[in-house]
């Protein structure tokens, strides 16, 4: 820490936050590593307090998430919805459209896909059925994203609020369907739609649960990367995100682009819902998503809104989720431990991210002095 020359006594000692003029590349690269180390240390204290050996717990987490074929496969399974929703959220964030509605868009995608598979074309052969559900998922999510998009574009309504509120509408609508009109009559009163036709199951990788959705995610990431970098539309999104006034000055179609971006954002989240449905659940049921749409926001930020970064972060967060979940069975830890660990790790990751841009400065504030030796007028 740089010491200031002879600060005299009047200043109050305190900690303050300063903006770092230009975050260095080294700091950007180091921070995630340091954050994770700190997160492990802090969680370690909590684990010790709970009477557990932190090293053993961490080892079990790592083994659970990445150590064997099954764990690794489960991590990939969880990567899929995080990746798709993360990409969806990131497109909107790039234009500074704060779409917090990924969760609802995911549900709508799943509802639309389920409706298609169950009632619209249930008898179709697999490629057609899956294709139809895919389109339905995209359209359902896009429509749900378009609502806050249109409210913002035409009325200037704050999309944070509207997209968030629509999450509740979507989740409750899905509840209504599985309790009511779509409930499987043979389920003895359990909420849930009938199972989709077998032809609707997404192809899997060997004996694991990893399904075609992973390919959807990777292709979507590649396409998105290309679109943002190489197309006129991608350039417009970039300009509108970085300086909306310059976009207006250049005559870019602001409204149309808001609508398009929100539709795309919603479509990607809807695809996440469709692939969860057709790849994992095979029926519309409660708790289709344990909050992927919210974790997506973290994925998008930590991935710096870059498709490549989002692929990496989605995988990393999936590993943390899977590793934590496995603790319960492998070490017999209380159920609350895993979410606590996950939360702590996320907290430090996000905090570290902020520290790349800001730093804490300790020490006395400099008292007001008069270097000229003259009194102020």
């Amino acid at each position, binding site marked *: 820490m*740089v*010491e*200031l*020359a*002879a600060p005299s006594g009047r*200043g*109050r000692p305190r900690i303050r936050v*300063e903006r770092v*003029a*230009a975050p260095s590349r080294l700091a950007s690269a180091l921070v995630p590593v340091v954050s994770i180390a700190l997160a492990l240390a802090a969680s370690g204290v909590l684990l010790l307090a709970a009477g557990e050996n932190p090293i053993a717990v961490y080892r079990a987490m790592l083994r659970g998430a990445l150590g064997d074929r099954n764990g690794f496969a489960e991590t990939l399974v969880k990567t899929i919805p995080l990746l798709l929703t993360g990409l969806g959220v990131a497109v909107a964030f790039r234009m500074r459209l704060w779409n917090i509605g990924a969760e609802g868009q995911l549900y709508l995608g799943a509802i639309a896909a389920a409706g298609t598979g169950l009632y619209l074309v249930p008898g179709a052969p697999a490629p057609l059925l899956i294709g139809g559900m895919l389109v339905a998922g995209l359209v359902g999510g896009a429509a749900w994203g378009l609502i806050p998009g249109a409210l913002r574009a035409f009325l200037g309504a704050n999309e944070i609020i509207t997209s968030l509120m629509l999450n509740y509408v979507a989740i409750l609508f899905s509840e209504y369907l599985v309790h009511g009109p779509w409930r499987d009559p043979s389920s003895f009163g359990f909420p849930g739609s009938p199972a989709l036709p077998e032809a609707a199951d997404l192809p899997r990788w060997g004996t694991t649960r990893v399904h075609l959705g992973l390919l959807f995610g990777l292709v979507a990431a590649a396409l998105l990367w290309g679109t943002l970098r*190489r*197309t*006129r*539309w*991608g*350039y417009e999104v*970039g*300009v509108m995100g*970085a*300086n909306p*006034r*310059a976009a*207006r*000055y*250049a*005559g*870019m*179609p602001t409204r149309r682009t808001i609508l398009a971006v929100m539709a795309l954002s919603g479509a990607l989240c809807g695809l996440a819902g469709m692939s969860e449905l057709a790849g994992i659940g095979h029926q519309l049921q409660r708790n289709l998503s344990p909050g992927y749409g919210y974790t997506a926001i973290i994925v998008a930020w930590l991935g710096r809104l870059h498709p490549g970064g989002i692929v990496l972060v989605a995988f990393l967060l999936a590993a943390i989720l899977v590793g934590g979940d496995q603790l319960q069975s492998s070490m017999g830890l209380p159920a609350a431990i895993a979410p606590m660990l996950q939360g702590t790790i996320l907290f430090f990751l996000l905090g570290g991210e902020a520290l790349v841009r800001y730093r804490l*400065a300790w020490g006395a*504030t*400099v*008292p*007001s*002095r*008069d*270097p*000229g*030796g*003259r009194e*102020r*007028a």
Partner: protein
Amino acid sequence: MIHDERSPAIEMRGIGKRFGATAANADVDFVARFGEVHALVGENGAGKSTLMSILAGLYRPDAGTLAIGGRPVRLRSPREAIGLGVGMVYQHFMLVEPFTVAENVLLGQERAGPWLETGAVERELRELGERYGLAVDPRAPVWTLSVGEQQRVEILRLLHRGAKILILDEPTAVLTPQEAAGLVRTLRGLAADGFCIVFISHKLDEVLAVADRVTVLRRGRVVGSVAAAESDRRSLARLMVGRELASLVERPAEEPHEAVATGEPVLELAGLRAEGDAGRPALAGIDLAVRAGETVGVAGVAGNGQRELAETITGLRRASGGRVRIGGADATNRSPGEIARAGVAHVPEDRLADGLIGGMDLAGNAILRRYRRPPLARGPFVVARAVAAFADRLLKEHGVAAPGRRTRLGTLSGGNQQKLLLGRELAGEPRLIVAVHPTRGVDVGATEAIHALLRAQRERGAATLLISEDLDELLALADRIAVLFEGRVMGIVPAAGADPERLGLLMAGVDGGGVAPVRRVAVAGG
């Protein structure tokens, strides 16, 4: 003047600062004393703002030492700098617009207790204002103030915090000549009271008039430090550029350029009305026409509707009445895109806010007007190679000093940003050019280049509406000069043989006799 007997306020020794591959400052020695106005000059990108930002605690130097009031210090933040009596007024003001002057002054100051003691501050501000000619109403919300008044608030804020060393980065670039003269008096008054003033400017006449000493930077290095009394434009310019600049030594008695046969009216305004940001009328019925091959200058004291005029013509602001016709077709309240496509180039007043994207690279900024069309676009795609070629050529042709097209625009020096914008807008074949302060913040050499560009466009047949507060610039470039006062055209006079005195009267709202009457333009359907 015997500077050496005054105590040194600032001593910077061997200062170095790199940004990536760019050495913004290299081995810079800079000494300024209490009681003097010290000017810092140099071409765009020479490192002036960087050096002063180091002094103000915003950047940390990579090398060198810094002493303030004779004591070696290391600054970690602007707050520490102000604590040591060093304050800087940046090229972009840092005021909170909805707050009053007094509240802005109090912001960030640490006073005991949870209450804002605005009463005491207001009194103190009035005293300071009276003493140094910095009058502003402490209770006025900042957004109601003119640019010149906001600048006074910035200075008052620093004085109120006890700054004894004031750094002003191109303060006069945003001022009218009258306001600039007032600022010069203020600075001289402060120096006489023992303050140390560092003053950055591209206007050499002004530098020679206000400064005691002048330090010249070239490509990050000090190439000379001279007493103003023993210097002149010629020697300063030679130091800055490193060679003789024929055109700027003696201001060529800008002979009224040969008349270009003017053509059809390209821009016609009839009874144009618009409201300002505060919802008050800013344009109160403007009638004006600009023909092909003609440059019409718009003079006036800042805040008399210039900005709104440019914005209303280019579609960025709604007209509340009247008509705009471009090339004979109605263009009133068309979208900015439609107007741009009609062949209108626009150099906006606030370049970083409106015309450029600070967070994007230079290539992204260069293509803003052309990314839709071939050769930069092919179908829905942007052709990376064409973009690179176009951006490189633009940077080269307009002498934008930058490491390359991948550089983030926000890191460019102010003047280089302006050069990029000018180059972009004046490329191609615009039918109408609306240029607001096109040479603000641009160094002497580049000013000449921009003037040459504007002249070439006029000869090519473009109609130009040139809004400027620099009368010399208007007289040099315009065919006719319209004077704006409180949103009205007070009069239109031919630039050839125009009398600055009479223009000044018109600008003050006095309808001088003998001035050509305001020309009414008949517009069908207007």
